[in-house]
């Protein structure tokens, strides 16, 4: 079935570990499917998008608004954080003086290390009241997008920064020989050269945004609805699980596992999609 090169005990250990992590992933998937079975046996699949809404106590299980909510905050956050993150990395690598670049990098690493519950609390007591002044109610799609953008920006900035650092100096020499300036080189040579690195960064950031729970739970308002503006509250799949899992029994619980399964499939699809478009190793 599998054919391994035999290279002594180290290789065997590695193979064991790799198999172990693969098996764990399959176990998780199996567990999710197993927990989802009761609801799949009871209701027909199209109820997940045909039911009048999400009211588990009244046997209606429409997941569509939450899938849209999840995609909404994620797409919004990624489209804000990507340009900012890439430009931060470019600034760090080519424009900032050495000392400043170091400090800036440390700051971004610090930003990456802040726990999400802290972001959420800050969002709840600072950002949400600000948005409420502009357009009530305050907790909204916009609040979620802004908080998530802040949270995934370090991921994009740091991965892009590392990719830029790995560009061979000969590129710069060639570009200088052609008489190109810094910005022309960055946008014409460097960024195209690390395209796969950038895509990997975006993928990691997107996966984090999709899976983020606590911060989103605190600032999005959690109303199950298809938002009609960026000031409307939304509920994401993750927030739904966090809000209701501890309180859910029987079919309700099973329906929550179904939404977890949907989330996992979305992330899997995302990883596969990125894999096809990059030659970067899987992260």
């Amino acid at each position, binding site marked *: *079935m*599998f054919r*391994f090169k035999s290279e002594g005990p180290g290789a*065997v250990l590695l*193979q*064991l570990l790799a*198999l*172990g992590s693969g*098996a*764990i992933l399959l*176990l998780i998937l199996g567990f999710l499917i197993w927990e989802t079975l009761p609801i799949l046996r009871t209701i027909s699949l199209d109820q997940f998008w045909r039911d*009048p*809404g999400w*009211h*588990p*106590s*009244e046997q*209606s299980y429409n997941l569509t608004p939450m899938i849209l909510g999840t995609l909404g905050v994620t797409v919004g956050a990624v489209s804000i954080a990507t340009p900012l993150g890439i430009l931060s990395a470019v600034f760090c690598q080519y424009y900032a003086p050495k000392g400043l670049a170091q400090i800036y990098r440390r700051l971004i690493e610090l930003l990456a290390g802040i726990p999400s519950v802290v972001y959420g609390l800050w969002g*709840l*007591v600072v950002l*949400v*009241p600000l948005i*409420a002044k502009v357009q*009530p*109610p*305050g*907790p909204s799609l916009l609040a979620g997008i802004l908080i998530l953008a802040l949270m995934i920006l370090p991921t994009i900035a740091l991965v892009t920064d590392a990719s830029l650092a790995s560009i061979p100096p000969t590129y710069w020499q060639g570009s200088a020989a052609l008489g190109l300036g810094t910005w022309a080189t960055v946008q014409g040579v460097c960024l195209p050269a690390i395209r796969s690195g950038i895509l990997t960064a975006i993928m990691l950031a997107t996966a984090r945004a999709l899976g983020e729970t606590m911060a989103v*739970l*605190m600032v999005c*308002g*959690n*109303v*199950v609805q298809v938002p009609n503006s960026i000031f409307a*509250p939304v*509920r994401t799949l993750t927030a739904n699980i*966090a*809000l*209701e899992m*501890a*309180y*859910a*029994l029987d079919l*309700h619980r099973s329906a929550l596992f179904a939404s977890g399964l949907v989330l996992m499939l979305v992330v899997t699809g995302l990883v596969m999609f990125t894999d096809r478009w990059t030659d970067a190793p899987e992260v």
Partner: protein
Amino acid sequence: MSGRVIAGVFLGLSLGLQACSTLQASSSGNAPQKLVITGSSTVAPIASEIAKRYEAQNPQVRIDVQTGGSSRGIADVRQQVADIGMVSRAAKSEDQGLNFHTIAKDGVVVIVHRDNPIQRLTRQQITDIYTDQLNNWQDAGGKSQAITVVNKAEGRSTLEVFTQHFQLKSSQIKADVVIGDNEQGIKTVAGNPLAIGYVSVGAAKVNVEQGTPIKVLPLEGIQATAQTVRDGSFPLSRPLNLVTQGSLNPQQQKFIDFAQSSQVKDIVQEQSLVPVQE
């Protein structure tokens, strides 16, 4: 070789899972020195405080308090994964075979922001606000601004107590914000001058004392005080219960007696809840 490897990995994993499940089983009520209490997040703060004092008096006992809502408390007691459940409502017909031990009384109060000029709301007005038929403070005697309706998530007994009292179905409620626990609800209302929400009176009173900008509204003309909650004249009052199944073992009996005794009266009052003893 590869087949063996895979078998080994699965064996290891299954052994790990086995270990987990035996751990679970050992905490399910037979061990005399450990009590597992799960359930309502409204009851959990007092239960934890009571448990701390109980542990101090009985050093050989360890009490583990976990939250997860009233329905979780009942399910855990039924499945015997918890010794005692916490339930923040009165017994219902489907709770047959369970024993309810009331340890305190609590009220559910409607709160608005402190800067909101509203002093009172009628029962009809609250119903209309929550079903989105009344969505401007002007129509309730306030400023001309949209109302932000804060509601509890499905499965919480505070939501159940609220909807039962106002005879609503949870699908009729059109909320602008859905929150999890009391604290999140209070922060949401405190951060939004146009919001209206409902929380446990205990959490609300503690926050008012700390200077959080919220205001507790009377219901049907009655203020939520210790007196009105205890005698049940405050319309939205509920018992906070510990729940057990079948006959009690000495350990459970001792803890429940302690939780209902006057030794913990000060703990209950500290949380702005009403003790069961006069």
